[in-house]
């Protein structure tokens, strides 16, 4: 029975794994961070759009490898930390966990389903905000407020953006 399940799961995972060009991954990650740094300066409302997180979730879901997901999340998170005035590691830890859990989730669900993507986008954004708030209060001693209604609304908005963004990113997959 054990042999059957292992023999069944491995080919399925390889079959479903999505491949991306390294330049595409680097470019998209850089653009997501640049968007956070630059565009939000002119349209302040866009600072609520957490593109680095959405990109982390997407690649973690597509790769279906928890280790790849956590390293990608750590890299994006640390880059984001570097461009903030806070100590390095805050976004790094949060996005490491997000990448790991997203990739673990992708082993059990159909990540191409838009409804599921909407749900995952919402859950991971909310998890990201909550965890960041906990870490900032616990590790840095900051007294940040956590407004639940605002966090929920922003999570829904990010999830909606995630659905369309993921459709766009699907086109950049390497085929063949």
């Amino acid at each position, binding site marked *: 029975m054990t042999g059957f399940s292992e023999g069944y799961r491995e080919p399925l995972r390889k079959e479903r794994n999505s491949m991306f060009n390294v330049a595409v991954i680097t470019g998209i990650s*850089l653009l997501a961070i640049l968007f956070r*740094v630059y565009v939000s300066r002119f349209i302040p409302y866009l600072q609520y759009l957490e593109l680095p997180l959405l990109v982390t979730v997407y690649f973690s879901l597509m790769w279906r490898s928890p280790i790849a997901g956590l390293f990608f999340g750590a890299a994006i998170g*640390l880059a984001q930390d570097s*461009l903030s005035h806070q100590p390095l590691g805050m976004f*790094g*830890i949060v996005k490491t966990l997000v990448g790991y859990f997203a990739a673990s989730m992708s082993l059990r669900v159909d990540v191409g389903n838009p409804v599921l993507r909407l749900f995952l986008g919402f859950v991971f954004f909310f998890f990201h905000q909550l965890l960041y708030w906990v870490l900032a209060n616990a590790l840095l001693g900051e007294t940040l407020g956590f407004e639940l209604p605002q966090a929920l609304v922003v999570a829904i908005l990010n999830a909606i953006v995630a659905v369309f963004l993921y459709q766009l990113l699907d086109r950049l997959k390497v085929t063949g």
Partner: protein
Amino acid sequence: MEFFLNRYRNLSVLVAAILAQLVLLAYQVKTNGDVRLIRVWAVGAVTPLARVIESGRTSVSHFFSDYFVLLDVRDENKRMKAELDRIKMDNQYLRAELSTADRARSLAIFQTHSPSKTVAAHITGNTTAAGAKVVFIDRGSSSGIEPGMAVITPDGIAGKVTKVFSAAAMVLLVTDGTFAAGVISQNNRVHGTFKGQGYEGTGKIEHVQNEQKVDQGEWFFTSGDDRIFPKGLPVGEVTTVHQGKTEKEIFVSLSGFRNGLEEVLIIIEGVHAPIPNAPVTTQTVHLLAPPPADAGGATPIVQPLQTGPVTTDADRTKEQYRKLGQQEGHVYGERSNGAPNYNTPLKADGKSDAKPDKP
């Protein structure tokens, strides 16, 4: 152990990655230091791209603004042909307004008049932290910028430099919740601490006792106590004052953000200045109202004011001729400009032999 690592490989890597970052975080918090290498890489990767995009945006924006300004000047020239004198004044007025509106120029004017040595910088982007009021500027250590330097605008204080890279620097804005600066009130010389509130336009003055006097509308200036901002820079105007438990609750409207925040000045060498006694005004050029329209183009004849009774000999003579003219039904000596012919002699009975001048 090996079995455990193989069995829980993913989880082991996750724990290792989290632990590594926790150690990194703990090191920074404990030593109050920074892992500069990673920051330099990230800033080096992102800020050049941001600068390219920003310069592109600025070029396009300047192109369109210049185009419309030229259109405006053309219209002005057309009107100058029709109303020469008035349009000359209007044109000067518009030029003055345009040059005053130009932020870069006003910044340069302020720079030359400011006693402190400053360097102008352009804001290129925000930081990634949610809710933080921190921006990147396009000047770094190569321009002599150092952490802790004050950042101002011609209207007031704007923030302070927190981190410096070779061609960029991070500025903590006065609106950030963690920002603080020493301040003093203009009229009552009350010392306090300015704190950012996390949102635009407003800040709070703390550590002012209830017994101390602060009026609504009073201005607060930097006191120089914080050793960052030189004394005498405007901070903001008091909008609300409440009595608190032991300290007053004072809110100020920040003056440094009045005209937006695109260009700033970094104080390289600060010079303390006295707190001004006059009320703070925005830096606009005061101009007189344009002169009234002159329809004919010729110099108008100025009629003397005749407010009181006739007093001089000339006035009395003129009055005699006027009364005589009324009796004889014509006007004596009136020329085109209204001056009487005083050469016609009068008789003793007040009549004259002279024929009236033809108009």
